[in-house]
């Protein structure tokens, strides 16, 4: 029966090809718009580390001015002061912990003919690599102990290793920054989590990962220049040491916690820590010590920016208009078939079979609309890449899951739109229709 109805649908669609084309195009446009925005949002809020995202947490403490919150709405500062980060890392209360920040450097030529190379740097502690599951091609992360010795070591990205050592295993070799030699301990494979989970905000969430990684001490000891956001509220004086001791926040702090109990334990530890710091006249605001999950953090940092949410809302309203359009057109079409329906009913077709038949037709239109919608979504995503630039490149691919979703959305929306017109068509009184023939 299904195939028979499919054939009837084909005949019906072809007979009223103009109307059918109109419906398919409208649904296609609606689905295309919805899918474009859904894809961008979906990929923006994708979980870059699904197997352990539930274990990774970032810490916020409210060390701000007692009279003025960091941000109205009582959001504590997004980063920690150096002294808090250092205290927490030394306390080793979590399974793993890392502090890190962004920096910049110039790798100087070791020979006359080479050219200096400007690189972006992440200054971090050893656990960073294991926590974020950074893949290594050569070598390994530096030892935890190195975080406290002042060894100058470096982990290179594959790209920089290619530039400097032609892609060879460079472990044991050295690079020169600010006149000092850094020993290469590892080379990581191309690692570009999107969003870049360890450092996300409105602007930087989809930036590439850094070129090289060095121990955090290279920043605190002014071997490498810190280049990250810093927010201060209390006055600071001249020296770098004063800055390190100040209430300025600039250090990202992350912990890995294996269970809810560990998380609760860490929360208690933080509360205790802040209580203890109050003895030094710090933390005068009410307790707001946060252990954020990845999802909470992405939300707080507005990784999916508001424009995209707004555009998604608009796209679904647009899809709504297209569906209403389809309902109207289907209604017109099915009611236009009244004589045919009357005839079939008089020949013994039950309401159920009629209903089935017309839903098959609506479904066909839905599938066609969905396929066209995918084409529009593809074009839409190309357009978004064009408009937003290379930064969005990772966010404009339709994967299999999304394609299936698009077709399902289209078919179910069209079937839903077809319900009322079909119901009306099946409930026409056959006698009336026959009379008019």
């Amino acid at each position, binding site marked *: 029966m299904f195939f028979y109805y499919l054939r009837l649908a084909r005949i019906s669609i072809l007979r009223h090809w*103009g109307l059918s084309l109109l419906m398919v195009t409208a649904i296609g446009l609606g689905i295309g718009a919805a899918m474009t925005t859904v894809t961008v949002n979906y990929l923006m809020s994708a979980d870059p580390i699904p197997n352990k995202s539930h274990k990774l947490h970032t810490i916020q403490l409210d060390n701000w001015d007692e009279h003025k919150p960091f941000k109205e709405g009582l959001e504590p500062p997004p980063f920690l002061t150096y002294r808090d980060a250092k205290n927490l890392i030394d306390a080793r209360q979590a399974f793993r912990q890392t502090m890190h920040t962004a920096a910049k450097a110039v790798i100087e030529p070791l020979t006359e003919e080479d050219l200096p190379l400007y690189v972006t740097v992440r200054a971090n502690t050893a656990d960073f690599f294991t926590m974020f599951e950074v893949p290594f091609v050569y070598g390994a992360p530096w030892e935890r102990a190195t975080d406290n010795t002042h060894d100058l070591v470096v982990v290179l990205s594959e790209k920089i290793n290619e530039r400097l050592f032609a892609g060879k295993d460079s472990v044991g070799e050295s690079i020169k920054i600010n006149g000092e030699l850094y020993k290469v301990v590892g080379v990581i494979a191309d690692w570009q989590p999107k969003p870049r989970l360890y450092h996300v905000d409105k602007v930087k969430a989809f930036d590439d990962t850094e070129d090289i990684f060095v121990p955090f001490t290279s920043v605190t000891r002014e071997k490498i220049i810190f280049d990250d956001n810093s927010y201060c509220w209390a*006055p600071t004086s001249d020296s770098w040491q004063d800055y390190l001791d100040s209430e300025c926040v600039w250090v990202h702090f992350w912990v890995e916690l294996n269970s809810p109990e560990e998380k609760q334990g860490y929360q208690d530890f933080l509360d205790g820590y802040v209580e203890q710091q109050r003895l030094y006249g710090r933390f005068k605001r009410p307790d707001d010590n946060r252990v954020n999950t990845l999802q909470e953090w992405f939300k707080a940092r507005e990784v999916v920016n508001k*424009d995209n949410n707004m555009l998604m809302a608009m796209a679904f*309203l647009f899809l709504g208009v297209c569906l209403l*359009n389809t309902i109207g057109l289907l209604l*017109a079409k099915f009611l236009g078939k009244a004589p045919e329906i009357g005839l079939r009913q008089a020949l013994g077709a039950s309401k159920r079979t009629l209903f089935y038949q017309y839903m098959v037709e609506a479904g066909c239109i839905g599938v066609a609309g969905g396929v066209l919608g995918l084409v529009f979504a593809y074009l839409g995503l190309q357009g978004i890449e064009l408009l*937003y630039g290379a930064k969005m490149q990772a966010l404009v691919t339709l994967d299999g899951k999304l394609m299936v979703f698009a077709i399902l959305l289209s078919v179910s929306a069209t079937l839903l739109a077809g319900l009322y017109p079909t119901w009306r068509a099946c409930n026409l009184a056959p006698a009336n229709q026959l009379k008019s023939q």
Partner: protein
Amino acid sequence: MIEFGLIIRALLRHKMAALILALQIALTLTVLVNAVFMIQDRQASMQRDSGVNEQDTFYLTSRVFAPDYDHLSEIPKDLDLLRHTPGITDAVYINSVPLSGYGGYLRLQLQPGKDQDTIIAGHYLSDDHVLNTLELELVAGENFQPEDVLVQDSNSARQPAKIIISQAMAAQLYPDNWQLALGAFVYVNETVPLRITGIVKTLQGAWHFWDQVEATAITPVISVSDSGIYLIRTEAGRRDELMPEVEALLAHSNKNRIIRSVTTLQDTRTESYREHNATNKILMLVIVTLVLVTAFGIVGLATFGINRRTRQIGTRRALGASKGQIMRYFMIENGLITLAGITLGCLGAVALNIYLVQTFAMTPVTPNLLLYGAISVFILGQLAVLYPARKAALISPATATRMV
């Protein structure tokens, strides 16, 4: 207007079709008004003046890597070289570039001491050439003097004696009369006094999305850093020709640094507003397709309505109705449905707007926009129904007899 009752009775008999069309029109109006509104909102912020001559200005980063580099003598040398290059009007060493997304800010207070109210200003640090290089318009006071300028390490917290602020900043300090700011003292780091010696008309800060973007301050400090910015203004029209020349000039004058990111202010503006621009283009596209979809929907529905009523139209024609009357019938019918849709759509538009205002912190939509939207949608409906209505009018009276 005898048709009125007739139309309404006919509509009531097929109320579902009419209702669906009305709903579609309502939703169209809802989206339309809000999309236009959001476009205007973004357009307005994109059109704000940065206060700076953007056409003839570019900048570059001088990234020092040699460990024993003597900034304090090299920077004046660079500036001297730049300022004496033919085609260059003026140049400065500066900490940040308007709208570039990277910069600093300063907390100013009118009274010294702890716990005073502070106002945040985007902060530029440069020397006495800054007004000329950026081509800022001074509305009160005077420029810095060469002897005012402090040249120091970027970690230094030493403060100069003077400060120049933007008029918007002055208005925040003295809401009743911004001119009172001239000569007044403001305090940084709670206690350090700086005298406001100049007020410039407009100068935007580094972050276009910051609500304090118009509130800015300049202090006469060359804050030395390994990654310094030179901002250069050329004679009108010579920017593009001079950019590569200047890059080479600086690169060759000192080999202990890398000259990077040679960028025009125009490109910086484009990059800064890229997202706004993209969102606006997408919204435009939404509006255009929405209008098309709705218009074609109306055409389709009306055509089918007319096909269904061919006999009725023929009969009316046979009974003496003129072509004009038939056309008028369908135009009025569509008009009534559209009006119902518009009424509903206005409610929807306001509701969506309230939601958007609350969720995305925007300003509310103006009644004017709603009115224009309603008129446009009404005209759209009438235009869309024109063709089917004409077709209906062309149905010959004979049809009525033939079909019986």
